[in-house]
């Protein structure tokens, strides 16, 4: 397959279908980290990604995968970073949320603060335990216990279902 004069549609499609290395049921488009694809010459494209968490090492893999997949499709690609606006779990698409649930992960609810927090406004302290109204992605029960706010990756918390007793991961709101 080689780059044809099809504008950027093919390049956009290829970049959008690259998957997250930690949550491969999500494409970069589903995850909301793909911020743009633009041309910078014949067969040359620039893909813009935004990091999820400041230290998430998956970004390096995403960048490499984007470059390789586009190379396979006949494009010379490079990746730029977009830092602003900061990524939010609200950017995970509805299709991505369904894919998470289909793979036994709990999808995030609305991010705290969100639009109502203006930049520069103080952040209130929350001493009470984190409470989320979740259902078990395996059996659908609503009685779940938080095991830990921190999981195997920066973006996930650990839960256990009281009904089916299975542990599951919840993608955190940020």
């Amino acid at each position, binding site marked *: 397959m080689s780059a044809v004069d099809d504008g950027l549609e093919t390049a956009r499609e290829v970049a959008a279908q690259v998957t997250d*290395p930690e949550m491969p049921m999500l494409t970069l488009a589903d995850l909301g980290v793909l911020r743009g694809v633009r041309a910078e010459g014949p067969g040359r494209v*620039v893909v*813009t990604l935004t*990091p999820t*968490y*400041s*230290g*998430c*090492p998956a970004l*390096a*893999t*995403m*960048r*490499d*995968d984007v470059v*390789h997949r586009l190379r396979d499709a006949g494009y010379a690609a*490079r*990746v*730029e*970073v*977009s*830092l*602003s*606006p*900061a*990524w939010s779990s609200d950017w995970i698409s509805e299709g991505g949320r369904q894919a998470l649930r289909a793979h036994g992960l709990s999808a995030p609810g609305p991010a*705290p*603060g969100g639009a109502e927090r203006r*930049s*520069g*406004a*103080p*952040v209130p*302290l*929350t*001493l009470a*335990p*984190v409470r989320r109204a979740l259902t078990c992605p395996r059996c659908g029960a609503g009685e779940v216990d938080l*095991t*830990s*706010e*921190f*999981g*195997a990756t*920066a973006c996930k918390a*650990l839960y256990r279902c009281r009904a089916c007793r299975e542990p599951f991961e919840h993608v*955190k709101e*940020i």
Partner: protein
Amino acid sequence: MSATTPGPAGSAYDGLLEHDADLTGDAAQWAFGTDFEDPLAGVDTAVPDGVEPAVLAAYCLMLGDDALVLSHRLSQWCSHAPDLEEDIALANTALDLLGQARLLLARAAAADPGVVPVLPAGSPVPPEDALAFFRDAEQFRHVRLVEVENGDFAHVVVRLLLAVTVRLAVLVRLEDSRDPVLAAIAAKGVKELTYQRDHAARWVVVLGQGTAESRRRLLGALDELWPLLPELLARHPGEVAAARAGVGVDPGDVAAEVDAVLDQVLAAGGLDRPAAAPWEGAGGRSGVHTADLASMLADMQSVARAHPLGRW
């Protein structure tokens, strides 16, 4: 591991390469990408009008070094926490802070390349790594609170609470920095510091209201670390200059907010504000550090310094 040449063809690691058909040598990628790439690739790093590049760079080093050294102290907890979940929590927090440090040190280097240590010609070490691994103790600009040797679990949650409470108050204000890069790094960091501060504060309350032993240890950690807090709120000339230029925050301006948050935590934990006298001396922002930093850096920097031309 060879530090200067790519691995030999046909090695046992070939199976780990994800795209080995047309890639060899430097272009080959490990299954999990590990190559260095500018974390600010494509970001406009022009210094705003009217801002001294050296002022902006020095300020970014302060914020970046705070994050780097705290991250390293937290990462030293890996496999030592009271339970697995807490081990992962501390490691996650260390990772967030390392990410903030990487961006801030890269921003310092982009603002004023003069701050980056000079390495031998041909070294592939990126500027933010050169800053992390090739500066000596007196060139670091973090506060001493983040560098002192680790203690028990009460020590790490008190250190985290104090450091992150001040950092969150500062980064919230930095969201409106005249430097758009610093503003963007801050906006992202605020989200992470919010749950880090909640996590540390909850532990302080739990330990304070827990057993006699947990309370005894918590009080010990508060007495030990509280004297280091004033340094975080002191108005260092480098921070004042950055604040005057509209790119930084004068830490004196966050003191009231920090006090209010800490009072809230202390009250919930049934704890009195420690009375211990503040540490004296010029402090970390001026490059005056404790002996603990030297031994920490010897550990943290030894591999990088042994292989300034290394490719990993």
